[in-house]
């Protein structure tokens, strides 16, 4: 099986550390950036990822804008929204930006495995 590469996009250092370690624990090579603009810039630099874990509320560029921008750039990888937002309306706007999956924080190993399962099923 090809090694999966992931990008963690979150402005909160606790969440960055947790998500990085959760992925690492599953053998997934990953990089961490702190807002949507950095997520877009890392793609402009030529890097490619199989999975993006995208937080919604971030300064400079939030998850909704970052997802729309990445999709407009032609990025087709799995983008999973990960947020503490629980209202349907808030989630819907995020999903409609171009997400493939949405998980409510806190992220757990089980939630991450369910996201990864979807990557395996679509490749």
């Amino acid at each position, binding site marked *: 099986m090809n090694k999966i590469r992931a990008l963690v996009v979150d402005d*909160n250092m*606790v*969440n960055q*550390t*947790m998500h990085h*370690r959760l992925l690492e624990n599953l053998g997934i090579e990953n990089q961490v950036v702190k807002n949507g603009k950095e997520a877009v810039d890392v793609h402009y630099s030529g890097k490619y990822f199989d999975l993006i874990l995208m937080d919604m509320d971030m300064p400079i560029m939030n998850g909704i804008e970052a997802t729309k921008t990445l999709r407009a750039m032609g990025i087709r990888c799995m983008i999973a929204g990960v947020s*503490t937002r629980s209202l349907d309306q808030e989630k819907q706007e995020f999903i409609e930006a171009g997400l493939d999956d949405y998980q409510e*924080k806190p*992220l757990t*190993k089980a939630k991450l495995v369910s996201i990864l399962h979807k990557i395996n099923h679509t490749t």
Partner: protein
Amino acid sequence: MEVGQMQRSLVDYTKSLFLEGVLDGQFLQLQQLQDETNPDFVAEVVSLFFEDSQRLLNDLTRTLDQPNVDFKIVDAHVHQLKGSSSSIGAQRVKNSCIAFRNSCEAQNIEGCMRCLQQVKQEYFLAKNKLETLFRLEQQIVAAGGSIPIMELSF
């Protein structure tokens, strides 16, 4: 105190934190990410949480002290604190943030002030309890023992 007794004290103390609602199952997720390659993972993440929370509480105090309170900024800080407390399993801190966000939405300044006091109280309680937990673990390791694995079966 012999190692077995220290280990039993640790288990009982940890159980009490779950029963009091200070911690929830997410803390066990955190512990499961600690291994030989990352032996201090829990302490590192919890330290980050302490630093992050202190900064946010200071920012909240300052923001609520302004003559014209910007509730959007207050809400953004509380949202951050809710997120990080939820990630480490600090349940009572998280729940107090939920109540705080309701006061922000209502633009209720007195409600926000009360909620800030409540969040500070819950945060300092969680901080003290977690620091005690880590001290107990360090005592066991210093005495040559290992940290017992917790399961939520109580």
